[in-house]
């Protein structure tokens, strides 16, 4: 952890340091194990994985079908699996239906495809408000939905982890899978925004 001498450590930082030193002192973990996990979730496991899944689904109708029927298996085809992604469900946004994800009880989130959850996803205001006034929350993310679009909120209260398959934006016909993956954002796979083509 980098140290900034200009400010005191936050309560969370102090707690994390205390927990880590206890685990090390008691011989339960090698400090290098913590570094390895931090490195993995900072550099290898994150929303670029989910973006590859989305781009594949946009370009391969058979893959998309498999993804919507058995998300866990189809995501594993691309090499993404593991803790907090053991049992995946992928739900599709359409012009008629907009899906958005939450874990009202805590912070459940599909780590292998989206990485660790953003702070706002874990915050009490998001968790309480997105279920009771989803359209208001989506507006705050800059997403205005027509009254005719149905909003579906998915609360991952159990062991399933969800990911939204966003709509492929218009004007991307003929794009390569890699170019499409570049467009896909974490927030679009949570369902708080749509995928857009920059400059359009």
């Amino acid at each position, binding site marked *: 952890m980098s140290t900034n001498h200009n400010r005191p450590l936050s309560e969370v930082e102090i707690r994390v340091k205390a927990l880590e030193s206890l685990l090390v002192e008691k011989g339960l973990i090698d400090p290098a194990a913590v570094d390895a*996990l931090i490195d993995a979730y900072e550099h290898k496991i994150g929303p670029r994985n989910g973006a590859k899944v989305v781009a594949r689904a946009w370009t391969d109708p058979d893959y998309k079908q498999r993804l919507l029927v058995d998300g866990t298996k189809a995501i594993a085809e691309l090499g993404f699996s593991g803790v907090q992604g053991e049992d995946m469900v992928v739900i599709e946004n359409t012009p008629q239906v907009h899906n958005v994800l939450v874990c009202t009880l805590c912070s459940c989130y599909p780590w292998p495809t989206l990485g660790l959850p953003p702070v706002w996803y874990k915050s009490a205001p998001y968790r309480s408000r997105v279920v009771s006034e989803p359209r208001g929350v989506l507006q705050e993310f800059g997403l205005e939905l027509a009254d005719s679009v149905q*909003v579906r909120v998915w609360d991952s209260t159990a062991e*399933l982890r969800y990911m939204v398959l966003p709509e492929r934006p218009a004007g991307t016909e003929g794009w390569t899978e890699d170019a499409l993956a570049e467009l896909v954002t974490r927030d679009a796979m949570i369902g708080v925004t749509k995928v857009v083509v920059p400059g359009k």
Partner: protein
Amino acid sequence: MAISPEQALAAAAAGASARVAQAMTPRFNVGDHVMVSNINPPGHTRMPRYIRGKRGVIARDHGVFIFPDTYAAGRGERPQHVYSVRFTSHELWGTHGRANDELFVDVWDDYMERA
């Protein structure tokens, strides 16, 4: 033995599913109308308060999973089906709900009754 970097990464890559490989007859079928029980257990539960006593429809059967309420208390796995249950916005939020909008919540078998 202290957990090594290799062990930590292997554990993260392997995961640990709470799914139970045990065939059980589901109590509910997709399309069944259900009511979430108004239970308020003193210990761990994974049923959010905002669906207690509310009516919904079984949308998906996710299969059989460990029941956290008993497992967390050291009272066994008590495996059972988990379903995605669809609630209308109006059912959960009354007059502040929005016609046509819906919420899907994952609910264990033990949390529900037939409606």
